[in-house]
């Protein structure tokens, strides 16, 4: 049985124009989000994770432009949605906790006003008294005291509380997908674990699909069941978490995973990735990773590798990872 995809991104390209030139933050990307999965999208800063996620809400930043592709949600192309249809789609079907979650709330409104406002614009017939119990339940699910928190203004919440409020908020309309963009980077380690245990619980109870954007591979191992690795606007490796961790095929993914602190306890070949992150405005020809890649060959400098299936539910975009070649995974 083939697993069902709730989101299918096809050939998506997003361009940003900068004074120095234009860059493709997302470069001909194909990506599937499996229904009911927790998929981690991993990559270093600037690799295009947030830009890719934004297109799923069709909320591209003012300066960004979608050059090609489609984002299918449940059979509709989200990028074609407009006006009222688009407005109703957002948050009802897919919600997102932004990287800037700490400043995602209107400073002049209490938490209850936020919840009620969003609820009302999606359910115009609603009666505030009848939905307040729902607000209570959502906040209790993230271990907050609803009586107190609902009355507070955003600045009266601590960082961890705000993040939990945002998680509760994202569940408000029972969406089918929730995107979490670096949900714990601003928080201390203990709070991070706490947040992930809450997310885990929510996932187990509701079966909601989650897309987790992070550059912290350690986080991925804890919560995700699928992983996609992004480099310079492209997906370079994607697959089931165990497969990808055990048979890492892309040299960049390999470096990411092995350099992650205390993950596989393989201190022996712990070596930071050489070279500097790519300049998206002036990408090297061929595979964007080749200047930093220890396995690079002639073809890598000339041709950009396509995402190819190399095992069951395991795809990689590398000339040298195909079975029988250099860095191959399944030896």
């Amino acid at each position, binding site marked *: 049985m083939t697993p069902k995809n709730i989101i299918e991104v096809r050939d998506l390209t997003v361009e940003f124009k900068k004074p120095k030139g234009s860059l493709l933050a997302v470069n001909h990307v194909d990506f599937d989000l499996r229904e009911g999965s927790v998929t981690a999208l991993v990559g270093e800063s600037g690799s295009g994770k947030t830009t890719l996620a934004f297109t799923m809400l069709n*909320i591209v930043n003012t300066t960004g432009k979608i050059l090609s592709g489609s984002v299918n949600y449940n059979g509709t192309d989200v990028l074609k949605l407009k006006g009222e249809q688009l*407005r109703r789609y*957002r948050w009802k079907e897919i919600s*997102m906790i*932004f990287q*800037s979650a700490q400043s*995602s709330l209107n*400073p002049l*409104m209490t938490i209850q006003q936020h919840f009620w406002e969003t609820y009302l614009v999606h359910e115009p017939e609603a009666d505030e008294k009848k939905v307040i119990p729902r607000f209570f339940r959502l906040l209790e699910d993230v271990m907050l005291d609803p009586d107190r928190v609902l009355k507070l203004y955003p*600045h009266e919440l601590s960082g961890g509380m705000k993040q939990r409020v945002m998680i509760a908020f994202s569940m408000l309309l029972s969406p089918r997908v929730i995107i979490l963009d670096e949900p714990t980077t601003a928080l201390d380690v203990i709070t991070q674990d706490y947040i992930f245990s809450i997310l885990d619980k929510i996932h187990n109870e509701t079966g909601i699909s989650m897309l987790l954007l992070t550059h912290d591979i350690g986080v991925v191992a804890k919560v995700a069941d699928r992983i996609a690795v992004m480099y310079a606007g492209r997906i370079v490796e994607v697959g089931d978490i165990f497969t990808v961790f055990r048979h890492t095929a892309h040299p960049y993914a390999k470096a990411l995973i092995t350099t992650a602190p205390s993950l596989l306890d393989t201190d022996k070949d712990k070596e930071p990735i050489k070279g500097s992150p790519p300049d998206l405005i002036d990408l090297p020809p061929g595979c964007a990773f080749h200047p930093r890649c220890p396995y690079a060959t002639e073809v890598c400098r000339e041709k950009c590798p396509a995402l190819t299936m190399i095992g069951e539910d395991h795809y990689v975009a590398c000339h040298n990872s195909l079975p029988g070649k250099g860095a191959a995974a399944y030896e």
Partner: protein
Amino acid sequence: MNYFLRKLGTSLLNLIAVVVTIFIVLHMMPGDIIEPMAREEASRLGITYEEAYERVADRYNYNPQEPIYQQLVRYVKGLLRGDLGTSMLNPKNTVVSILSVALPWTIFVVSISLIISFILGMQLGALMAIRKRGIINNSITFYVTIVSAIPSYIIAIILSIIFVYQLRLFPKSGVYSIDVTPGFNMPFILSVLHYSVLPITTYVITSTGGWILNMKGSSVHVLGSDYVFAAQARGIPEKIIMRRYMKKNAMIPMITILAMAFGGMIGGAPLIEGQFQYLGMGAYLAKALGERDFILYQGLLLCISISVILANLVADLLYSKLDPRIRLE
């Protein structure tokens, strides 16, 4: 409450500093202005110069021959009694009586002008922030550019040439017609409005541009903030985002600027009031300065400073009322 008391204390300290500063600056002006008057009085009444000097000094509650600290004590004692001295040109008029005539007219004109230009500025500024291009935006920009390049008294002159001298729609001078009796009656109110139209129009024309640009800047800033982006992601309709997110947040700094602008404008614009011979604070300020009536000048300055300090206090308190982030402090 604590916050209120702290702000009140700061205002009081400011007030004391202002009183002392105005006093010292004005008393550093060279020359003894009492002397010529004492001479004149001595010869007129046939008394000794010393005696005349004493009398004149007492009348103005100001004796430049005393050491400065003694002068300050004398001045402050007068203040505490509510005595600001008398006009030097017209000793029958106390400074307080002049203030009580001039201040209400200026407050009247300034408040109406500010309300009109503030409301216009908020609406147009917000509109400009939302519609980045288009006819509305271009025409507002054009208007603001033109108006900000013209000094306000030129606008006053243009208006009076057109409406006073050519069309004869509005009076040349004064604050109400001599044919009406002051009080709460229709003819008086209409007359007051009639006389104030041109000064108010001038203020509105000259100050609306500033409000528009301020509000536009503030709105653009808010539009770029994370919580507006997040609201869009939640499917909040644009109309609500503009009203509840952009306008409300953008207006908080505007409202405090409004309170302060009000204080600042109590000085009136001497040139505008002068052009229409509208006898408010500005007109008296110009008069006092022109005629070197320095006791009147000192009284007017003090009154203006107090209103600025009060306005700042109101601005602070308003800010804490409007912005929940300040409330906890």
